[in-house]
């Protein structure tokens, strides 16, 4: 069966792929136990870190212009676009507001909103139900392995590799 571009949902991770920086780079004392709860919506941000750190993270959090250009290119080719990220519910609006066009992203799979995070099989199950063909773009090898085991395709956003070329090759362009 030949897939049309619109049958493929390209799902981008945020930190390390579409956006920077990680919360850990702004946290004076990163608390991974709290992060594990925050990223699945079991903790609210005021209980995660103080308000000044929260404000600093929002001020630093940016979408990468080069990756936005890639997303726009894929959109122009007819692919559907998703964001699939382990990310706090409270931070998602900051990223959404930076999109040059809100219609650039069709679906948002934010762990803090879903209540489940990568690489939990439940996350892949939700993602897989969204399209006939899903290509995950992620920088974490553990997530790539999990996605592939769940029947998704996956492309490693390897630092220094030519991500547009690798992704377009995976998409058969």
């Amino acid at each position, binding site marked *: 069966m030949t897939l049309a571009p619109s049958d493929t949902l390209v799902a981008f991770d945020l930190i390390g792929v579409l956006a920077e920086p*990680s919360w850990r*780079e*702004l946290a004076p004392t990163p608390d991974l136990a709290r992060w594990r709860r925050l990223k699945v919506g079991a903790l609210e941000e005021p209980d995660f870190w103080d308000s000044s750190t929260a404000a*600093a993270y929002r001020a*630093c959090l940016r979408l990468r212009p*080069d990756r936005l250009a890639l997303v726009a290119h894929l959109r122009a080719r007819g692919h559907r676009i998703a964001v699939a990220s382990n990310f706090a519910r409270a931070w998602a609006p900051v990223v959404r507001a930076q999109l040059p066009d809100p219609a650039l992203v069709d679906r948002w799979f934010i762990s803090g909103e879903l209540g489940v995070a990568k690489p939990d099989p439940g996350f892949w199950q939700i993602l897989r139900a969204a399209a006939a063909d899903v290509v995950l773009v992620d920088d974490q090898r553990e997530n790539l392995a999990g996605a592939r085991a769940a029947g998704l395709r996956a492309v*490693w956003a390897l630092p*220094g590799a030519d991500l547009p070329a690798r992704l377009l090759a995976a998409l058969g362009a």
Partner: protein
Amino acid sequence: MRGPVDYAPLFAELGLTADEAANVLAAAADAHARLVALRAGLADALPPGCAAFALGSLGRYESSAASDLDLAVVYQPDRIDPAAAQQARQRLAADLRARGYDVADKTFHSAVALGALLGDIGGRNDTNDHLTYRALLLTEGAWLCNADQAAAVVESLFGAYARGAITRGRYLTSLSNDLQRYYRTICVDYRFKVESAGKHWAIRYFKLRHSRKLWHLANLAVFCRAALLPDDERDGWLAEQLPRPPLLRTADALRPLGGLGLCAGLVRAYDGFLAALADPQARRALDQLGYDDREASPLFRRLRDGAERFDAAATAVVGHLWDTSRDHLVRYGML
């Protein structure tokens, strides 16, 4: 690096107590605290199209209150006018000085265009400054402003080597050669600075024998380890390892080669060096030490003894690489 350096698991593996590595731990904590404060305070300090990095001890997570700040600003001319980038760099340097940082206008005295670092690697227009930027941004560049663009800069640099059509080599040889070239350059540059430019010799001497040598050793170990990985895993492993602090990447390279225990000697010797660098009195004494007076200085003799121990530990590491990854060490690290 994403967040603070966590040496605790490594030191536990090595059987080192917190006291034996107190200065390594303190330097890592100091660097993270400084980076967090600077990032929070400088979030809007640079316009889009520029990224700012801390190189040197802060970028290696080895800083102290006595450290200066090597500020590097890299810009993309298609996104910002070069003159505007220079002005932004000057404002940022002034801001950092107002915060109490010693920002030297030496190698990194002006903003540099990303294309200048990528376009002519090894060619006529590839200067020592360009080499310095590339080597340090890849191995000890901690972002200060515009993390989104900083990530793109580092990926472009790595990609310049990884995407070489003819020269990259199976083992990313063009990158390892460029890193070795930088190390040899600073070793020779020491001669010029001390013999001809009237710079303080002692602190440079001990930096060469500790931090510079560790940086080189870490790269050597990482590439020797990478050579033994399957081809399709090598680039990714290198890209992940190179930004890590030298002690961690040495350990990560030696662990699968059965040589992790050799890191204990490195850590102990390096800890003594960091203790001296964090001590303003010791730094001042080194700055004032005449070459002919060195043997009369207890500080000099103590640091030299530490440097000898560091050499012994480093030699043992190279010996282990000789035993476990000899082909790569000889063919690509030496010949």
